[in-house]
């Protein structure tokens, strides 16, 4: 679930209302409940509610039965209700040029129905919502393939529940191949394949060359249908299904995943709806047992206790207590102390956090010719810290340096992450490389880092430091001057 404000920004402007839905859950929103700067909380919704209802209601009584207004609706409830025999739109068979067009309804009828039942005053709003429902494939125009709702005499047909998105369709290319094959078997000009479909068919024929006979047989078997009218309806529904799942261009609106609906004036139900959604996601979360958690916390704390100045006495002493900054001088020096070097072995994160550790690890990677991984990781960290204006350019630069074909510091990404990343780069942002960065980090952690800890560079430093430190301690002496906080200067 995206936050409200980002969803609102993706609403078409000029509408008084919008809708939120995710996987079939829908609720309807009234924009006049919102603050003008679009910073919204359910708290402020309560405050604005009275104002909004005065603005819109104007004392009008809602005409009964307003079945869907003011409630949580599943988008499929709308679609079911709209087809209801008594309260829905008139679905009928229309005579045209010697043929009968079965089971259709006009766009205007749908718009009227939506306006009445979802409390909209503006037909443009109804068209907008209707188009978004159509884009999901719940109803479709029988003549062309533009999945949008028009407020005129265009005929629409409802999709069979079998094909509804809530059945979580992930149709395979073999099914698509069978379908395109079927289309070519029907000798009617108006069912001819469109250009993109012909191209798709050619591609699939090459991909499935070896099992094309099988596909052809399936198609043949399916073409034998029963009743002519039934076949007409089923064919058009199947066509609409593939218009959604194999569209001519990728026009699955990203806003579709988060269409904004809301319960009209009732912000309490809105708040509860979010609660319910949230609780459902929490139930799906996999949690750790307390015993494991306790062990993990204890292990972490015990590992770091020797580094905790407030728990373990420091060597040299805590500057605040002894008024002697030797401890800080040591930390700031180019030569990291043994405990510090030891800490780099706790986790990759610790090693990278310390500039000296990071430097050593980079040197080690250079010796293994895999330094581009760390450099990539550092570049992406840097990207996330840039001012907004510079983000897009920097993201491009990173692509050129590390991921493009023939890149100078080419990193090794699995094809899935690579695909995702190149998709993200179409709209570059500071999080475009999250997947890739994660992948590379895991790679470094499991592979290079473990070797680093066993390497001579690291081990020598670890052992050497022990000796150096002993020497240091025996020869140092405490300074007796008093340091006040005001006069501390940062020395490099």
């Amino acid at each position, binding site marked *: 679930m995206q936050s409200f404000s980002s969803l609102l920004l993706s609403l078409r402007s000029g509408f008084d209302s919008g809708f939120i839905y995710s996987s079939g859950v829908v609720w309807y929103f009234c924009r006049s409940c919102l603050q003008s700067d679009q910073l919204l*909380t359910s708290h402020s919704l309560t405050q604005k509610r009275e104002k909004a209802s005065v603005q819109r209601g104007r004392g009008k009584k809602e005409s009964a039965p307003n079945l869907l207004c003011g409630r*949580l609706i599943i988008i499929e409830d709308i679609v079911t209700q709209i087809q209801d025999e008594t309260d829905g739109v008139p679905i009928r068979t229309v005579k045209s040029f010697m043929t009968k067009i079965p089971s259709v309804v006009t766009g205007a009828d749908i718009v009227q129905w939506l306006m009445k039942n979802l409390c909209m005053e503006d037909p443009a709003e109804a068209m907008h919502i209707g188009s978004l429902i159509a884009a999901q494939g719940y109803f479709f125009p029988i003549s062309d393939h533009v999945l949008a709702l028009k407020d005129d005499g265009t005929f629409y047909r409802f999709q069979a529940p079998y094909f509804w998105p809530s059945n979580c369709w992930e149709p395979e290319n073999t099914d698509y191949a069978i379908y395109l094959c079927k289309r070519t078997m029907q000798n009617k000009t108006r069912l001819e394949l469109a250009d993109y479909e012909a191209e798709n068919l050619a591609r699939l024929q090459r991909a499935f060359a070896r099992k094309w006979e099988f596909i052809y047989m399936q198609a043949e078997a399916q073409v034998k249908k029963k009743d002519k009218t039934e076949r007409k309806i089923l064919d058009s529904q199947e066509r609409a299904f593939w218009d959604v799942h194999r569209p001519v261009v990728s026009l699955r609106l990203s806003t579709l995943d988060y269409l904004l609906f809301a319960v009209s004036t009732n912000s309490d139900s809105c708040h509860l709806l979010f609660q*319910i959604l949230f609780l459902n996601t929490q*139930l799906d979360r996999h949690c750790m*047992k307390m015993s494991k958690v306790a062990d993990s916390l204890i292990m972490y*704390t015990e590992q770091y206790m020797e580094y905790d100045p407030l*728990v373990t006495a420091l060597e040299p002493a805590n500057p605040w207590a002894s008024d002697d900054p030797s401890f800080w001088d040591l930390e700031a020096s180019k030569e990291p102390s043994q405990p510090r070097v030891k800490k780099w072995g706790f986790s990759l994160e610790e090693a990278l956090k310390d500039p000296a550790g990071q430097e050593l690890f980079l040197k080690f990677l250079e010796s293994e010719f895999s330094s581009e991984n760390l450099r990539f990781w550092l570049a992406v960290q840097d990207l996330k810290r840039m001012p*907004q204006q510079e983000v897009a350019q920097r993201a491009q630069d990173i692509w050129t340096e590390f991921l493009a074909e023939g890149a100078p510091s080419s990193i090794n990404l699995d094809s899935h992450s690579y695909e995702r990343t190149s998709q993200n780069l179409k709209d570059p942002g500071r999080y475009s490389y999250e997947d890739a960065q994660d992948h590379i980090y895991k790679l470094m952690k499991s592979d290079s880092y473990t070797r680093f800890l066993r390497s001579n560079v690291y081990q020598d430093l670890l052992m050497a430091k022990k000796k150096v430190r002993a020497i240091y301690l025996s020869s140092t002496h405490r300074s007796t001057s008093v340091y*006040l906080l005001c006069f501390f200067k940062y020395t490099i």
Partner: protein
Amino acid sequence: MACQGLQKGETLASLKTESDGLKKKLEVERGKLNDVELHQVAEKTEVLGALSIKTRRVLKGHGAKVLCMDWCKDKRRLVSSSQVRTSTDLWTREHGVSLPCTWVMACAYAPSGCAVACGGLDNKCSVIPLSLDKDENLAAKKKSVAMHTNYVSGCTFTNSDMQMLTSSGDGTCALWDVESGQLLQSFHGHTADVLSLDLAPSETGNTFVSGGCDRKANVWDMRSGQNIQSFESHESDINCVKYYPSGDAFASASDDATCRFYDLRADREVAVYQKDSIVFGASTVDFSLSGRLLFAGYNDYTINAWDVLKGNRVSILFGHENRVSRVKLSPDGTAICSASWDNTLRIWA
């Protein structure tokens, strides 16, 4: 994810029932994993020796209650904010410079050490660049970054000087681009004022935790604005939240006189730090470097040091003569700084 639709005629009440039902179900599910208490497992840990933590410095000079402070990464400078009768002073000790900002409730040092952010009752959070020139007119350089519709209760820079996270009395948290003042992401979910926030310590993480007057502590994903986890076990306003050093858990301080410890992996409260003798609200918490100690400042003028694992109080730090408003560990863990309504700051080590 299934969320069943309502049939005709269902109302607000049924939504409430569904929500309550899910809450109970969640409790039961989580309860199944609660096979042992933290302090029980911690019994095998060595008992802490007596702490030798004392006041090492007292910083006077504020003319009024000190509301907030933050350390600089160089571990020697700090910024603190106070509420003087007519205007608010904000300064860094090294320079002794008074920075212009009214009604400051939150202040933060930029990671580079070159700027300071402050915000409060002016509903804004501004960034002021620092310079070594004492005579420079810093008031002119102040830049408004965050705009909320209510007071700003907390602010922090993310890993760079370029982004800032704020929490506000308007119930939201927000992520801002400092240079342009653009709102990058907003976080909605609290139903009352948000009083505190803390960024996860991990270099690779993108989350933060916030606590508010709705008694909830929420964990957020900075990238998507989503509320990832929520914890509701306090009995009153949460004044302060702070991550445990590993980033897997966090602690909270509340007006209900307790501090609580929550683990993100177990998705539950794992410890409560309370005593019958402690009746005043806790306003602030911070962990020691290893996470073994939890320092909490209270409205009864004391700071209590708790053993995080075993759950008992290890030490009481006396010294302040009024409420403790903020407690913060220095970046290298060598000291704790406390700010108080008695107009002073104390460094403890």
